[in-house]
């Protein structure tokens, strides 16, 4: 067979193969799934909305029963009216602004600290045996227990609040990252090394992306801890001319303003849930779908 013949045969074979392969590929793949973000958010939200409705009904029943007088336990309508008034006069926005500002700063620092601790602990075995269990231990410590020390160290300041928020959230974030790095499939590490990803490159291109789903889980948990720590902090550390949500809760109690107190509690609950669903819930879901860990619905 001449060289030209062989070349021609190769081309013909290649074309036949291409045709057969694409027919095969078409058979093997299922229909594409479409995925609408708004629909999925609603889908995730409705059971929670129903649960809120049930709670409102129970609350109304307890209020109607006369177990406590209405000035101590107002019915939902009074609390919601108070909430509407707080929204209308802008005082809610001011308080929420202060509180969310603190949350963003504290949580942001916690992400940085959690990342640094997570990478360091997963990278150096000695460090892991030294502080690995301490990180988990810190996570179980109620963050409110830090406040007396934080107030001694920093006084009644923003720093005291931030300190405790970071201590509350960083261990969960670090643990999420450590767990994610530990669970990176060894075959992906080998594949990365074969392709030439070593040292920092391996972290950047293989280890950290592979650990991302678990890290996002850690962020979500870290947010829950940060939010709780922040509320505890705002009740204990009240700073003048800073009308935070926590401060308003405390004042409402001092003034026996039950409707205002419950209105603020609703805000605390709503913010916690909104961030959990709208931000981390959908982020976690998107990452899991993208990584092939969950089906797109």
């Amino acid at each position, binding site marked *: 067979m001449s060289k030209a013949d062989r070349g021609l045969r*190769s081309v013909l074979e*290649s074309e036949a193969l291409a045709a057969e*392969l694409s027919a095969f*590929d078409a058979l093997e793949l299922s229909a594409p799934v479409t995925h609408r973000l708004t629909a999925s958010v609603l889908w995730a939200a409705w059971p929670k909305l129903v649960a809120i409705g049930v709670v409102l009904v129970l609350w109304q029943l307890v209020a109607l029963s006369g177990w406590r007088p209405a000035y101590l336990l107002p019915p939902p309508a009074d609390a919601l009216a108070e909430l509407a008034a707080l929204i209308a006069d802008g005082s809610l926005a001011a308080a929420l602004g202060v509180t969310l500002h603190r949350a963003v700063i504290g949580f942001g620092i916690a992400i940085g600290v959690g990342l640094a601790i997570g990478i360091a602990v997963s990278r150096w075995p000695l460090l892991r045996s030294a502080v690995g269990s301490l990180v988990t231990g810190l996570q179980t410590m109620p963050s409110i227990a830090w406040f007396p020390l934080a107030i001694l160290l920093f006084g009644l300041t923003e720093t005291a609040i931030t300190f405790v928020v970071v201590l509350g959230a960083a261990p969960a974030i670090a643990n999420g990252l450590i767990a994610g790095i530990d669970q990176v499939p060894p075959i992906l590490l080998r594949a990365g090394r*074969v392709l030439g990803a070593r040292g920092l490159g391996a972290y950047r291109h293989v280890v950290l*992306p592979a650990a991302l789903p678990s890290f996002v889980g850690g962020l979500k948990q870290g947010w829950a801890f940060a939010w709780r720590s922040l509320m505890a902090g705002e009740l204990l550390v009240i700073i003048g001319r800073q009308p935070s949500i926590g401060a308003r809760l405390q004042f409402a109690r001092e003034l026996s303003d039950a409707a205002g107190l419950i209105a603020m509690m609703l805000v605390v609950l709503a913010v916690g849930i909104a961030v959990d669903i709208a931000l981390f819930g959908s982020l976690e879901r998107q990452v899991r779908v993208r990584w092939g860990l969950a089906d797109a619905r």
Partner: protein
Amino acid sequence: MTAALRVVREASVPQPADRSIAIRLSEVSKVYGRGQSAVPALDRVTLEVEEGAFVCLVGASGCGKTTLLNLIAGLDLPTAGRVEVPGGRPALIFQDAALFPWLTAIENVELALRLRGVRRSERADRATDLLRRVHLLDFARKRPHELSGGMRQRVAIARALAQDARVLLMDEPFGALDALTRDLLHEELELLWREGGQTVLFVTHNVREAVRLGQRVIVLSSRPGRPVATFDVAIHGHRRIESPEVGALSVVIRERLGEEVRRHVEG
């Protein structure tokens, strides 16, 4: 059996000296663990693969084939002996395609180019070209979990080709695929090898697959692994896994492999 013998020459054929060597292992041993619990995985393996050859290794479990490929790929160091790969770092294809699940097909290929230092402006074109060569251009934007097992393995092949390595190591790459897909991938791999002229070292449990693809089939013993027989596949013209010559040689090699397994059990 005469038909089989005509296509078989048992080992000992000296390799032509004018072809340069792509992989050379000299008295390579690998022992895992130490002292009492030491497990020898490879025992004084000597092996030469010429530039551009397609060599298949067959062996039962415990023949140390993954260890062997790790040593050649530079992922591990031998306990004794020398491993030489003059053409630079080899590419390695795994049984599980081992694609990065967070990247699309084309991004997986582009990452290989990037890690090799290919400039950003060239990466997209070259990755597109590589996916075209494995007939997957239409699926460039799919993620690994959206592809079938065979398609994933083809992306893995494109990613390995992106390394532009002269040596391609394959660790049972088609072991988990159904027979029809496997046949197609045999065709595809053969075409890519004929075009690219790389040296291929292909490890498999499947003797027929080895005879279908290889120019040479090496039988490995088990625990520890070492080459015990070499068969030259002197089948000319187009080969398919159903070809009678492939079947005949497979029987011979299968028997040799069986001997090796029995010896291990008895010994």
